[in-house]
Every structure is written in C-alpha cells, then in structure tokens.
C-alpha cells in the first residue's frame, strides 16, 4: 500500500470512531448498577430497565409514541401512496409544483412548523391531544412515503394495470389488486420511514405536547434538561432497539425491491 493511502486511512479511522462511538456507549451504560452516568459501568444490573418499565411517565411515553407512530404510518402511507401514484401519471408544472409542496415539510426547519402548529392548536384546543399529534407527525412523515413510493413507481409498468382494466376490473380494484402489490416494497419502506419519523420526532412534539400527553423523545428531552439518571440510558436503548429494527426492515424491503426490478 502506498504511503499516502496509509495516511488517508490513518485519518479516516478516528473519523469513523467519531461517527460510530456515541452509538456504542448508550447500551452498555443502560445496564449500569450506579446512579451516575460514569462510563464504563462497573457492575451489571437491570435496575434502570425496571425503573423505566415501572414508571407511568416513561412507559406511558413509550406507549404514546408507539400508538402515534403506528397511526401516523398508516395515515401517511395511504395519503402518500395515493399522491405518489397520482403524480406518476401527470407531468409538467403540476408535477413539479406538487412534488415541491409535498417534500416541503422535510426541508423547512421543524421549529418554524412547530411554532405555527402551536399557534393554531392553542386556539383549536388540540395541544396535548392525539389528533394534534397525528396531524403534526403525518405532515413530517408524508414526504418520506411520497419519495419511497415515487421511486418504485418509476419502474412500474403501467401496462399491467391497463391489462386489468381491459379484463374488466374497475380502476380502484385494478389499483388495489395489481398496482399496490407491485409497488409493495416501496409502500412498505415508506410505512417504516413514516413510523421512524414520528417515533423519533421531538421538536414539533415539544410544542404540541402537555403533561397529559407526551411522547418518549419529549419525555427524554425534559428529563435531560433536569436531572440526569441512567433511566434515560434505558429509554435511549429502547428507542434504539425499536428504530433499528424498523430501519433494518426498511433497508431489507428496499434491497428486495432492487433485486425484483
């Protein structure tokens, strides 16, 4: 290996460590027996998981996040799939305009969207309510579904659907029985992305939550601002396990999609 190549890798290894290390400290820390966040933990214990699962605030936050995440994923997937399908059949200005509008929530700083929603929700009594969270998170999750489903629709052969029409299927039936199965990998990864987006969201959620309805990331944020105890590490490990599982399934769905086409 050339000297310059060795120097290059000597630079990249610490960079890789910087990128990876933080993810590696959280899970071991969640099993500490100490009250402090000293790392590495000296003794093994489950006590912070017990503390997590026996606290109504932490467990309640987790259940809220799971419920909101699943509902948001369902709503965003239905809306996003319909929009992406419709967009694949038009072109020109309408397409560019709609596409830009649909991915907008991905690009505008969430704090601005949060302020706006907070203003409206205060008047409409939606702060700290399930419908409020569903509206907020669906807006943030929608772009991921549109992008994922749009990507598979590019390679979808619409002749299949026409064949179903000619064979007598109604348009909605042809869409549900022919098109949807064909674009399923994109729909599935859109669903999981939408779930992760909602499950992880903290900025907008902080604006629209109240003590009666909090999600897990919001609960984590407020406890990080006050006292730091290793229950947070247990919470972080629970979040990581759930999002990693969802992400792995999404990646799997995506690679299968590539293999299929």
């Amino acid at each position, binding site marked *: 290996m050339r000297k310059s190549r060795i120097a290059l890798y000597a630079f990249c290894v610490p960079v890789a460590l910087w990128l990876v290390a933080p993810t590696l*400290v959280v899970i071991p820390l969640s099993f500490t027996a100490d009250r402090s966040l000293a790392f590495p933990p000296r003794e093994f214990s489950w006590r912070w998981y017990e503390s997590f699962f026996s606290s109504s605030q932490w467990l309640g936050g987790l259940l809220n996040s799971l419920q909101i995440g699943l509902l948001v994923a369902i709503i965003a997937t239905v809306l996003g799939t319909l929009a992406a399908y419709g967009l694949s059949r038009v072109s020109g200005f309408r397409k560019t305009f709609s596409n830009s509008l649909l991915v907008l929530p991905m690009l505008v*700083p969430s704090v601005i969207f949060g302020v706006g929603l907070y203003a409206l929700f205060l008047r409409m009594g939606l702060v700290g309510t399930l419908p409020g969270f569903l509206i907020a998170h669906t807006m943030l999750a929608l772009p991921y579904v549109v992008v994922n489903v749009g990507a598979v629709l590019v390679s979808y052969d619409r002749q299949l659907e026409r064949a179903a029409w000619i064979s007598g299927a109604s348009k909605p039936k042809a869409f549900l029985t022919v098109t949807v199965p064909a674009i399923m990998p994109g729909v599935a990864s859109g669903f999981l992305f939408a779930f992760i987006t909602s499950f992880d969201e903290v900025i907008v959620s902080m604006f629209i939550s109240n003590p009666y309805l909090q999600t897990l990331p919001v609960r984590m944020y407020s406890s990080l601002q006050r006292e*730091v105890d290793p229950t947070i590490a247990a919470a972080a490990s629970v979040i990581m396990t759930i999002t990693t599982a969802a992400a792995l399934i999404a990646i799997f769905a995506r690679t299968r999609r590539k293999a299929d086409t």
Partner: protein
Amino acid sequence: MTTATRPAGSGAPPRARRGLGPYGILVLPVILIVVLCFVVPMLTVLVRAVTEPEPGLQNFAWLFASDHTLALIGRTLRLAGAATLITALIGYPYAYAMATAGPRVQAIMLLVVLLPFWTSMMVRTFAWIIILQNNGVLNAMLTGVGLPPQSLLYTQTAVLIGMCQVLMPFMVLPMVAVMRSIDMRIPLAAQTFGAPPVKAFFTVYLPMSLPGVLSGALIVFILSLGFYVTPALLGSPREQILPNALFNQIVDLLNWGQGGALAVALLVTVGLAFVLVYLVTRALGLKVNVAGGAQL
C-alpha cells in the same frame, strides 16, 4: 417509464376525461391537506409577526435594531458556516478514501457515515453528554494518556461535535458521487507529464471534484440553520441561536410578535440559502438530494 410502454400520443398520460383526472382525484386532496396543516400554520406565524401586539412592522424594526437579535442571527450564521467548513474539511478525505476504495471497504465506510443519521436524535445527543461530560468517556481517555482533561460540554465545540457528526452523510455522499465519476487516468496523465502527485491532485483532481463539495456544502449549510436539540442540550444557554431563541420567545414568554419575527428571519435565511442552492446546482447541472433533513 420508457417511450415504448406509452400508448401513442400520450405525452402527458390520459387526463380530465371526466372532469377530474388522476391528479384531481388523487393528488389534489393530499395537496389541500398539506396546505391546510402545513402551509397555513406557518402563514399564521407570519401574520402574527406583523399584527401583534398591534398591526405594523415594529417587530421587524426590533429585529434589526436590537444588538441582541443581530448577534443571534450572526451567531446562527457563524455556527452554520463553521459546521459546513468542518464537515467539508473532514468529509473530503473521507469521501476520497471511500470513492477510491474497493467495494467492501466502500460499503463499510457508507454504513459508518450513515449510522449517526439513522440513530435517533435524542439518543445521539444523550450519547454525547455521556462522552463529553466532565467525568465522561473523553476525559477518562485523555487523562489515561496523560493529557489534561477538557471541559467541553455546554460549549460551542460540543455543539459542533454533535452537529457535524450527523451532517457528515449530507457532505460525504454528494462528494463520493462526483468523485466516482472522475476518470482516475486524468490526474495520472498529469503525473505522466511530470507533475508531482501533490500538484496533480490540487490542479487536476480537486477542481474536478469541486461540484460535489459545493452541493454538499450548500445542503449542510441549510440543514445547520435548523438545529434545535443539539444546541439546546450540548451548548451554553448564553450562546443561543435562532431556533432556540424562537422557542423561548413563544413557549416561555408567549411573545408571539417578536417570536414570529424571529421565525420569519429564520425562514428567510433558509429560503435565501435555497435560492442559492437552486442557482448553483442549475449552473453546474447537478442533482442534489436533500431527502431526510427535517429532523436534526
């Protein structure tokens, strides 16, 4: 879609046969929902900025007259600039190593750079607190090798360490895309004509890879402007940036007028950066993918 799969004469697919085409039935309702639930809330912020406490532009006059707010905007821009510069300087060698490595190393390097992006923001921020706190992992390592401990948590350095980590993929991936398209025989040709490798790199390779650097830098800059959690938890409350000041004005002080003016300032800054991205990418003929930047 290839032209062969399209029936004759359907430059645009069939539309408007029964009044509403697929656009009207499928896309328009979703667009309306997005306008109602996303665009309208943001417009109300703008409206409140010019109507509270009374109609007029006094909130914007405050924005530009107060040293505090000008310092806030300046600090936000500086932080975004610093994050862009750091990710570019660290990302370039990383991207070069990745673009010129074998497929297996390349796959590992891709996984490594994407890992922070895939990790939940709260988890990532919490991990940095564990590492950077005074009796944390970093200081244990520093004192272990005989170096003086650093008190990094609650400083701008900590904010930059945490921010740049998750911004890396947005810098590295466009760089790699451009670098992979560079024909390595061209810098080699420069060396054949007698240029030393360093000179061949700086006069031939670097200019050819600049479009990737530029598109990465623009995306990173835009995303840096919207960070909230990392500065709030890793930074010092005395060195607030726009998104955090905005949150305080609205949620803690219920100051909708001035908070709204701050929101407009942030939105305009991001908007201007976008116009810049659009113009530059168009001039260079690049495609920039900004998917996934909302949650930082």
